[in-house]
C-alpha cells in the first residue's frame, strides 16, 4: 500500500498541509486557561463514552483483572508479591497515579508509573523487569492507576520536578519532524477543531493506561506519544527515553486538577 495515495491518506496529508498553512499565520503559543481545560472524554461519541463508564463493558477492565492477579502473585528470586509489601492496593495505591511521574531521589530524575513498577520488580522482587507494552506491565500499571480513578491529578509544586516540567514544555513547544509542527499548535491552539475528520483533543493524559480502539488493546502514554510523533512525521524516541518522561511530567502538570479516568477508552 503506497503512502499518501489512498483517498484517506490524501485527505489526511491535505488536511495536515492546510493546518500547517493556518499555523504559520499564528506564531504565538497560548497555554489553555485552567478553567477551559477539558478531558478528551468530552469529545467521545455517546457509544464510546458508554464503553468507558460501564465497568462491565470497558475492555480496559479485563487488564485491571489481570493486574489484580499479578499484584498477588509471588515473583522473582525474592518470592515476593506486590501485596506482600503494599497490602491491599485499593488502600495503598490510592492517589499514586495522580502524582506520577514522581521524583526519584536515588536517580535524581522523575520516573513514570511503568518505570516505578519495574524498579520495584528488579530491586525488591529480584525479578527481571517487564518489557514496555508487555501485557503484564500494562495490566499492573492499569490496576495501580485504577485505584486513583476520580481523584484530581496533583501536578504538585515539587520543586525538584520543575526542570523536568520545563524540559517537557520545551519539547511540547518545539517544532519537530518533517512537517515542522509543534504539539502545542494542535493541542493548545487548535483543540476542538477537526483534523482528518476527528476533533483535536487538548491532549491531557487523564486516563492512561487506556484502551485505544485503534490498538484494540490497552496501551501506555508512551505508546500514544509515539503515535503522535509518527503522525507528525517525527522519528520517535525509544521506549523509556528521558524525553518521554519529561513530556509525561509536563503533560501531567498541564492536566493538574483534572480527574483520573483510568482505564479510559479512546478512539
Amino acid at each position, binding site marked *: 500500500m503506497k503512502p499518501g495515495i489512498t483517498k484517506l491518506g490524501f485527505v489526511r496529508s491535505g488536511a495536515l498541509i492546510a493546518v500547517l498553512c493556518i499555523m504559520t499565520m499564528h506564531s504565538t503559543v497560548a497555554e489553555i486557561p485552567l478553567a477551559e481545560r477539558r478531558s478528551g472524554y468530552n469529545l467521545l461519541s455517546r457509544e464510546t463514552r458508554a464503553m468507558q463508564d*460501564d*465497568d*462491565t*463493558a470497558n*475492555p480496559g*477492565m*479485563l*487488564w485491571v*483483572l*489481570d493486574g489484580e492477579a499479578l499484584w498477588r502473585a509471588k515473583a522473582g528470586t525474592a518470592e515476593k508479591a506486590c501485596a506482600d509489601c503494599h497490602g491491599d492496593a485499593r488502600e495503598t495505591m490510592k492517589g499514586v497515579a495522580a502524582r506520577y511521574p514522581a521524583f526519584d531521589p536515588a536517580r535524581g530524575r522523575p520516573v513514570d508509573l511503568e518505570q516505578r513498577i519495574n524498579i520495584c520488580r528488579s530491586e525488591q522482587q529480584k525479578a527481571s523487569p517487564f518489557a514496555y507494552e508487555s501485557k503484564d506491565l500494562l495490566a499492573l500499571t492499569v490496576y495501580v492507576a485504577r485505584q486513583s480513578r476520580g481523584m484530581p491529578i496533583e501536578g504538585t509544586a515539587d520543586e525538584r520536578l520543575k526542570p523536568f516540567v520545563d524540559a517537557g514544555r520545551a519539547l511540547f513547544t518545539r517544532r519537530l519532524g518533517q512537517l515542522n509542527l509543534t504539539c502545542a499548535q494542535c493541542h493548545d491552539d487548535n483543540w476542538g477543531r477537526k483534523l482528518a475528520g476527528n476533533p483535536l483533543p487538548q491532549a491531557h493524559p487523564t486516563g492512561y493506561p487506556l484502551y485505544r480502539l485503534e490498538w*484494540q*488493546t490497552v496501551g501506555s502514554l508512551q505508546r500514544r506519544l509515539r503515535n503522535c510523533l509518527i503522525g507528525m512525521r517525527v522519528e520517535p524516541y525509544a521506549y523509556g527515553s528521558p524525553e518521554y518522561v519529561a513530556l509525561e511530567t509536563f503533560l501531567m502538570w498541564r492536566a493538574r486538577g483534572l480527574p483520573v479516568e483510568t482505564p479510559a477508552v479512546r478512539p
Partner: protein
Amino acid sequence: MARALINVPAKTKRGEVIAIKTLISHEMETGFRHSTIGVPIPRNIITSFVATYNKEEIFRAELFPAIAANPFITFYTVATESGTITFEWTGDNGFSATETAAITVE
C-alpha cells in the same frame, strides 16, 4: 485462561426479563492482515458463544472475524428460577473458556 467480565443481575423477580452483558479478552485476529513483509497473519477468533441457564440453552451466537477484539455481547433472558447461568466461548486453535454466574430469582 482468558479474562471475562459478566454482568448478571444478582437478584430478580420471577418472570422478569433481564439483560446479561458479557465481555471476554480475545484479540480476534481476522486472518485478513499481513505482516510488514506480506506474510499473512493466520485467523484466530472466537467462533461460538453459548449461554445455558440451569443447563438449558438460552442463547447461541456464531461469531465471524468482523466482531471486534475483546468480544462484547449483550442479550436478554427471562428469569425463571434460581440457579446458574453458564457461558462458554470456543474458537480457533482449540480456544475454550467457561464462566458461570449465580442468579437468585424470588
